[in-house]
């Protein structure tokens, strides 16, 4: 009698678990990653692949490296990429407001603690305040570095200092070239880039992103997905974000091993201890997948810079942001 009951219970459990197992086993997901090297952007994927997290979850993940957030949004909207990682909210808001089938599924980076602005070693500028009236570089219009430099301008003006000039110099290497050729006084970067040069004393950090109070509690980048994909493959999406969280946990618990994986996969040529200093720029809290903070600040800035022609309604926002796929 007892054995019969157990058999029935086991059968019921198996039957109820089957759809979930079937929906993730061998599920194929294509993800868009906007950078091959950056810690928060690429390392969770490297770790998940190297530690076999995807395989264990029954996922077949195909990684596509794209050039920046704009390209990531286009790829996800087109459906070529199912899940886009580490993308600024502006491009997403702009596409969503035009009816693109995308949904934000998690926060990726809150605050700007990882971005820093450097000056050449012989530069007289040592702090953010000392750069008043000078030229500070950002990457491109609407990027997180652009927002940050505008934040710096606001901050310095509030201190009655002369506003610096925001100069678009492009990517990290392009910006470095610009700084070396005198096109701006301070250039932006993010670890691990230039940590070795800073160590050698060739460059000096003038200020860091977390010195700009406006963005400390604002989610700067998010992970998002194609809405049709989410609708048809909710199990796969949940499994993916479970492994993503697993990778983040691993990255902060096993720093030595993570650095080794990172150096191998991103082909970093720096010394291991230098690369490990990246952890000084990232806190685990900043990479929490939920909540998405400071959305009002983002919406206001998006409208200010032409990414949103009209404000999103609460209903639209609820449709855009869906955190139910997170563990």
């Amino acid at each position, binding site marked *: 009698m007892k054995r019969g009951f157990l058999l029935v219970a086991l059968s019921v459990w198996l039957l109820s678990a089957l759809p979930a197992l079937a929906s993730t086993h061998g599920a194929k997901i294509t993800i868009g990653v906007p950078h091959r090297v950056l810690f928060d952007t690429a390392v969770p994927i490297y770790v998940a692949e190297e530690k076999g997290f995807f395989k264990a979850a029954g996922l077949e993940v195909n990684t596509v490296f794209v050039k920046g957030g704009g390209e990531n949004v286009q790829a996800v909207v087109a459906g070529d990429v199912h899940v886009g990682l580490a993308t600024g909210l502006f491009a997403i808001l702009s596409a969503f407001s035009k009816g693109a089938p995308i949904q934000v599924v998690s926060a990726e980076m809150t605050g700007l603690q990882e971005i820093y602005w450097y000056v050449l070693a012989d530069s007289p500028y040592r702090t953010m305040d000392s750069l008043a009236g000078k030229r500070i570089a950002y990457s491109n219009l609407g990027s997180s570095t652009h927002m940050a430099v505008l934040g710096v301008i606001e901050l310095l003006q509030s201190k009655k200092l002369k506003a610096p000039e925001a100069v*678009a110099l492009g990517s990290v290497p392009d910006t470095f070239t610009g700084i070396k050729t005198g096109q701006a006084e301070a250039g932006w970067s993010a670890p691990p880039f230039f940590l070795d040069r800073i160590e050698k004393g060739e460059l000096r950090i003038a200020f860091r992103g977390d010195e700009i109070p406006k963005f400390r509690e604002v989610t700067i980048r998010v992970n998002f997905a194609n809405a049709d994909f989410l609708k048809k493959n909710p199990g796969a999406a949940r499994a993916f974000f479970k492994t993503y969280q697993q990778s983040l946990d691993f990255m902060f618990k096993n720093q030595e091993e993570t650095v080794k994986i990172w150096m191998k996969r991103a082909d970093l040529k720096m010394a291991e201890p230098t690369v490990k200093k990246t952890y000084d720029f990232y806190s685990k809290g900043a990479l929490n997948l939920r909540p998405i903070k400071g959305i009002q600040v983002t919406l206001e800035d998006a409208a200010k810079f032409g990414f949103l022609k009209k404000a999103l309604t609460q209903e639209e926002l609820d449709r855009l942001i869906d955190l139910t796929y997170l563990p």
Partner: protein
Amino acid sequence: MWAREKTQSILNRSLMVLSCLLLLELAVSAQWVSPLFFAKPSAALRTLWSQLANGKIAGMVFITLYEIGFAFLLATLLGLLLGYLLWRYRILGLSYELLLSSLFASPLILLYPLFLVAFGRTSAAIIALAALFGLIPIAINTRSALDHVNPVLIQVGSSMNLLPRQIFRHILIPAAAPAVFSGFRLGLTYILKTILGMEFIVNVGGIGKWISEAAFRFETEEIYAGLFGVLILSVAFLHLLDRMERWIRR
């Protein structure tokens, strides 16, 4: 007869362009293609017009025009001079023409970071790279054009006691003009491509920058408006070049 053929060819061309535009208009209206990625030509042209009328992109158009004009002027002057020297001094021609042809076949656009270092992230970098791209076909075609002028024509000029200056102006230039202008057309095409491409990649300058920013903001109509603007500019420049060729060959 010639006038009739010309009218016919213009009609054919216009019909072809209009058919393509109509097909795209229909495809987007009927949603055979996603309106997220394709814009109706009518909407794109409206956007282009409104952006020009409200002055939003007038500055950008001016920058692109200035870059094209300046790069083409540089490429023409340097290309003609180089082509003439390669023809005039045979050993120079033999030594360097192959090198120039190889350069022309190589993806010089990949050198753009060097130009950004040398000229900064400014229009100057775009003009310099575009001029380099443009001068190569001009120089190659100029040398080849002068090389292929029928020697009988020069002999006739000499027998009529024309001065070297007169032979150059009245025999060499008209005889070489068709091939030299082919070089100009090629040069201009490369200059247009380089300038728009560079503006798009480095996000500096005019229409290319506008298209790049529109793509980032997912403004499909603006992207197509920019593309139409580029097409109109290309056609206008090539038409101007045709007119100039006819004037020179008179």
